[in-house]
């Protein structure tokens, strides 16, 4: 299972990855594999401010529906329209083309409190 070293993670498998002054948010490779084929993604509107730990959307696979949780607090600056039209991008390239939203953080230090790649790897039983 791939773990992007530049990203940090929630135990609920969302990642945040620094990009310029913003964060790219998506779900981990482990999460997409566990979910199976992703068939629907619901994402917030650009401009919405959401706190760390709050839900920012829904992801549904063939098997089940799951809430998506914010790894850092911030304002949505961009939403991946491509993934709304082709949710399978999450399975194909979760750290790349399958990203979900980009946020301008209200407290960038929150990033440091997330699990780094090594800690996340341990949390999902991989090294």
């Amino acid at each position, binding site marked *: 299972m791939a773990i992007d070293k530049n990203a940090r993670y929630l135990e609920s498998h969302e990642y945040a990855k620094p990009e310029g002054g913003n964060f790219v948010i998506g779900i981990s490779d482990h999460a997409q594999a566990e979910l*199976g*084929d992703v*068939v*629907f993604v*619901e994402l917030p509107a650009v401009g919405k401010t959401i706190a760390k730990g709050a839900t920012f959307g*829904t992801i*549904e696979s*063939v*098997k089940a*529906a799951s809430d998506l949780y914010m790894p850092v607090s911030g304002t949505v600056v961009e939403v991946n329209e491509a993934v709304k039209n082709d949710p*399978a991008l999450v*399975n194909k390239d979760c750290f790349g083309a399958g990203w979900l939203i980009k946020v301008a953080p209200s407290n960038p230090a929150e990033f440091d409190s997330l699990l780094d790649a090594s800690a996340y790897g341990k949390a999902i039983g991989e090294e």
Partner: protein
Amino acid sequence: MAPFAGYDMPITYPTGAIEEHLVTRRSVGLFDIDHMGQLEISGAGADAFVSRMVTAKVSDLVPPMARYSLLLDEKGGVIDDLFIYRLPQSWWIVVNASNRAKDFEWFKAHAPEDVAVVDRSDDTYMIAVQGPRAIELIDKVANMAVSSIQRFNWGNISIDGVPVLFGRTGYTGEDGGELFFPAAEAQHVWELLLAKGEALSIETRPIGLAARDSLRFEAGMPLHGHEISTEINPIEAGFKWACDFEKEFIGKEALLAIIDKGVSRKLVGIEVFGGVPREGYEVTSPDGKDIGHCVAGMFCPTVKKYAANAFVLPDYAKVGTEASVVIRGQPRKAVVVKRPLYLPAYRR
């Protein structure tokens, strides 16, 4: 893997459910469906007995014909749905895994002394080979051309020395067949079909339960426990066509009373916009009235729609009727659509 009716079944293979669905629609899917049960009914009174037990007309069935039917209780509830093969000396009845024991007991309890009901499930293996190139593949591995066997007929074939009862039937909406053969040969036949597909460049993949469900759903076929059950009658589920009212069968009186009185709900297809409908979700009218519930729902990979089958009040059953499906607390726009979403190959 997941437990299903006492079997460990793959929900998906590594290919993934969506791709498995699409492979079956474009080439060949292999389905390991040994969990399905097979009952064999024979004896002097077998013809009359089978006719009285099942809803479909069977008096006109001669070898090598087969037909879909329902098995009802006296109230008209659906105990199971069946595929009935008329063999030269007996009736071969394919039943659902989860109902196998119940069906067997039901047949046995009603059987007169001159009828034998035998559960042949344990010594019979069942593999379905489905898809637009399925017949081409089996033609190449069998000792005879199965393409000469008509839809809903069967034939005795042999695959690499293994005797196989081949039914040109299936549960996907594609052409193809279902293979019945001695259980000890399961791995041999399975691996041979995969290897032949590879060798002949006929794309052939194993298909799990998730894609089996989405394939049957798109093609408008029922799954017992969802569109039909002992709590659902065939009239409200749209299966009057599978019942022969010219003959006597268990449940007929109840169905006639239901037809006379009118149904209180109807099975419809619903397309949903903005979420994935699933079993149990409520259906509401545009003004918020509770009008029914979904019994199955999913993303449909071939028609690329989010759709459900739902039982709704008859007033809301017309194609084009606007409704909502409540997905995780939120009413989502929906509309009643024509079933099936995907027209089976043999009806085109």
